[in-house]
């Protein structure tokens, strides 16, 4: 019996290693696929017109509406709420040191550099990334992707490029809007709680926040938009086995893209604060 146990342990280690190896290879393959998708999308955006197969403007516009405009109500509402929340916490914390006057510095910088892009990224991952995965997954199992292929229509050009353009354009814009709404929410609370006029608050924010901070946040939003699109498309394209498969991959895409956003955010912060 102990012999069996002795033999089982190396086997189990080997199996575990095997499984880890497999998922590592799978992971690397997915990253590689993402790189290829990105490259092909850029190719079609740049050279599609030249090859007389341009990326569809109507579809791109429709995607933009979906990614950006239709997300406005929810992003606005959550941004204002979070702005108020940051102000409450900021004032509460700084009051301990009697430094609540300084709250605008913390608010301005953290919202523009961090929370605006992060909130927007997570919202878009949940809203658009998931629907992209579901849409492509559904098209895959109903053979619509095959249909494109046999009609001589490149699916990357037809489906992925419009989505990517829309995301790359709209997510930074949405982030800008989220920044503004968070700062407004925070400003409203600051003016009520500390009796600071809204104009004075605005002036302070303008003094504190530099263009660099803004660009830092927007660059992240740009990266997030690419990540969310690729994760959504790859998971959609990998759907197997009917509606249940679509549901599974949709969930996976949301979890993966939010994780990717947070990790990228951390790496980005680390790198940009070094130099």
């Amino acid at each position: 019996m102990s012999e069996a146990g002795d033999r089982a342990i190396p086997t189990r280690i080997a199996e575990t290693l095997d499984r880890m190896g497999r998922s590592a290879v799978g992971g690397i393959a997915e990253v590689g696929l993402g790189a290829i998708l990105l490259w092909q999308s850029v190719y079609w955006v740049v050279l599609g017109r030249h090859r007389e197969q341009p990326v569809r403007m109507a579809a791109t516009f429709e995607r933009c509406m979906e990614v950006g405009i239709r997300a406005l109500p929810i992003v606005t509402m959550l941004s204002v709420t979070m702005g108020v929340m940051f102000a409450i916490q900021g004032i509460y914390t700084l009051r301990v040191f009697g430094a609540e006057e300084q709250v605008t510095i913390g608010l301005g910088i953290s919202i523009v550099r961090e929370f605006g892009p992060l909130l927007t990224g997570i919202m878009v991952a949940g809203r658009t990334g998931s629907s992209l995965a579901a849409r492509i997954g559904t098209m895959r199992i109903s053979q619509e992707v095959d249909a494109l292929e046999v009609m001589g229509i490149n699916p990357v050009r037809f489906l992925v490029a419009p989505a990517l353009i829309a995301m790359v354009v709209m997510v930074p814009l949405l982030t800008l809007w989220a920044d503004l709404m968070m700062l407004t929410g925070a400003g409203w609370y600051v003016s009520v709680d500390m009796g600071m006029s809204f104009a004075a608050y605005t002036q302070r924010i303008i003094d504190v926040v530099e263009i660099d901070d803004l660009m830092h946040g927007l660059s992240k939003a740009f990266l997030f938009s690419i990540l969310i699109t690729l994760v959504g498309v790859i998971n959609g394209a990998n759907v197997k086995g009917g509606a249940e498969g679509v549901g599974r991959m949709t969930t996976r895409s949301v979890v993966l893209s939010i994780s990717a956003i947070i990790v990228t955010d951390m790496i980005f912060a680390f790198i940009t604060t070094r130099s």
Partner: protein
Amino acid sequence: MSHAAEKRDDRPRPDLSGAPNVIEVKKLVTHYGAREILHKIDFGVREGEIMVIMGGSGSGKSTLLNALLGLLRPTKGSIHILGEDLTQISDVEKTLLRRKIGVAFQGGALFGSLNVLENIMLPLREHTKLDVNTMRIMARLKMQVVSLAGFEHLNPSELSGGMIKRAAFARAVVMDPKILFCDEPSAGLDPIVAAAIDELILNLRDAMGMSVVVVTHELESAFRIADRICVLDKGDILMTGTVDEIRSSTNERIQNLLNRRTETETLDPEEYLKRLTAAND
């Protein structure tokens, strides 16, 4: 269904024995992962003929179709479509070749974001420089051919199963292809609608003179439309021949395939009793 069958028998089956092949498959082997699905298949389709690929579920029909469409890369062998070797040509050449084929997928594969007319116009939009009005007229013409006129502005989700198939056929032939592929055209349809779809396939071939490759597991439909039938079983081709040749084949596996249908579909009690007693003798 016998109604449509009679109609078919009115039509002379064209003599195509001398026609050149538009599809030529040699020693085709395909794998899914490590599993070999098709074992060295040889297969040809002549110009202007309706070739039915028939076989039970899991016999490899869809796999063969996907290989013919260039959706699945074969492990070995060659596939010539209209003289071009699918396994050798570049992507650009493949795109050009694909303008000359049309595919009606099993579930229609219509795009949910486009209405029926836009779906049918899509190949024209992508591959021609015609102005929108011309494209609309051409698409409407094809809609008339498939008896779908008047449903231009419906969304695919508002169509019935038979209408979806018709729309899929209209989209498949809108570029006047040389070869039309249909995957399980009568699957999921009631017998009357299925017979009407068979009739449509015959009409399309007669009107446009194209070659047609139909994948189906339904014998009724296969016998109704086929000029020749290719019987697939477990990844091998058992036999290729005319309807009469297949019917009169002495090959045991083919007879099994043919009889399975009579057992499950014609529930004539007298016939059943006769066969029971025959088995007891």
